[in-house]
């Protein structure tokens, strides 16, 4: 009888420690995205939809807004945005998911928001 409940027998989830190049920011409906360099024109080699996203996201938008504004299905918008982020053309803002290990981030964002309101 050896497989029994034991403290400390929990297995550690996979973690990649050797040189991850980007943090994992999942693209959710509410995730904010913005063009990395808003003063540039979209690269001509992009698909037309991606060019429109590039232009639209010169101001920060949520994934849902991008989809609604450009009338493309939500899943398609997410895939196009993920490709643009891979190319370094679009920046994906960290989303507070509630699962974040550092809830300080949430508090800091709230604090910054309050500061802006009263400036």
């Amino acid at each position: 009888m050896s497989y029994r409940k034991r403290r400390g027998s929990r297995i550690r989830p996979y973690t990649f420690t050797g040189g991850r190049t980007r943090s994992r920011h999942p693209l959710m409906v509410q995730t904010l995205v913005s063009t990395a360099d808003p003063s540039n024109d979209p690269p001509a080699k992009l698909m037309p939809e991606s060019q429109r996203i590039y232009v639209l996201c010169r101001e920060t938008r949520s994934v849902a807004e991008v989809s609604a504004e450009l009338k493309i299905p939500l899943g398609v918008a997410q895939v196009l945005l993920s490709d643009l982020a891979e190319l370094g053309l679009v920046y994906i803002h960290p989303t507070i998911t509630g699962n974040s290990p550092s809830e300080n981030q949430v508090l800091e964002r709230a604090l910054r928001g309050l500061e802006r309101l009263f400036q």
Partner: protein
Amino acid sequence: MRKILIVGAGHSGLHLAHGLLNHGYDVTVITGQTSIEIRTGRPAVTQLTFPTALEYERELHLDFWSAQAPQVEKFKIHLYPPGGDPPIQLTGRTGRADQYTVSIDRRVKMADWLEYFEDSGGKVVIHGVTLSDLDYFSRMFDLIVVAVGHGELGALFDPDPGRFTGARPRVVAQANIYDVAADPGEDETIGWAASTAEAGNMILTPFLTSEGPCHSLFLGDKRGGPMDAWPDRPRPEEQWRRMRDLLSKYAPDYYERVRDASLVDGNSTLVEHLTPQVRNPVGVLPSGGLVLGIADVVITMDPFVGQGWNHSTRCARSYLASIVEHGDRPFDAKFLTDAFERFWEYGLPVQHWAAMNSGLWEQPLPEHFTEMLAGATAYPEIGDRWIQGWDYPPDYQNWLYDPVKARAYIAQVAAANKHR
């Protein structure tokens, strides 16, 4: 670089995604659940990773758990005949002397594979995919592989009754448990599997969850059979109580091992209904674009035979080879059909074996089958070959089904043992 979209982050989809990434493809996985949601979500039907599938995972650096998981070197089979007689038993190794089988909680394995895929440079998009999404995607990607069989996407793949006729609707009840009593005289890592004439099948296997090693107990029966005891969706403790009751009636040896066991914390039980079938592997989108279904999108295995992940690994590996060998040529209808037919050369004999197991007690056991069981008791190599057939079920057609081949094999083993 060819762009490939994989819809669904299940066992086959992620195995293929990692394989393609290793070959330099631009791979996007789109799935409805984040890795955290997979990790903390509901359990799935327990699956086994046999030695060859484990080797395939290691080639892609996907075996993260062998060091922590119970290493199942042997399995024991119990066949409970009608009338409550004691079971016929058979024991064998799951692989060669240096090999073993593992069983890992899907929530651990899929969550880790998804995160590792993203860290390796794969793109992950969290979104439940609709048909209109897919229509759009068919212009953006060179190939779309669909690896989720439920919802509106499942409807893309029509049932193909011509492929297989042994379908029996099944109900599965399962529990992850601690404190299972040892099988006297055997290693703690031994797995057990039973087939009963009066109810369905049982599998009791050492298992690795996020809480550490435990056992997973599976009871499968036909819909409406004596072990379909869950119409009122009982709560976990009540389900577990009924599972033990059923074992005491239909598989008393199993009851003796689990009578003092208790449920693992958290989500540790499930009840699931499924109907084994084979579907058309090529789906046509409203705009005319084509998508390829993989593994359980196309083939729902009878859960009695524990082949779910073996099938999905072998299907992913077969598709990977077809895709890579196809080079830069377009992924047209002929390619998609051929890719499935290539896998089906393996899949069809597995269906024959599943059909034999599914209907084992519908007629008296054939004489050569009983002789083989006696042979397995006398000669360990027969028991080994029997159990190792789970790793590669097409081997059974070489020695088990046909009376002439079966008797020739027993005679050959007997002669070899006489000269030893």
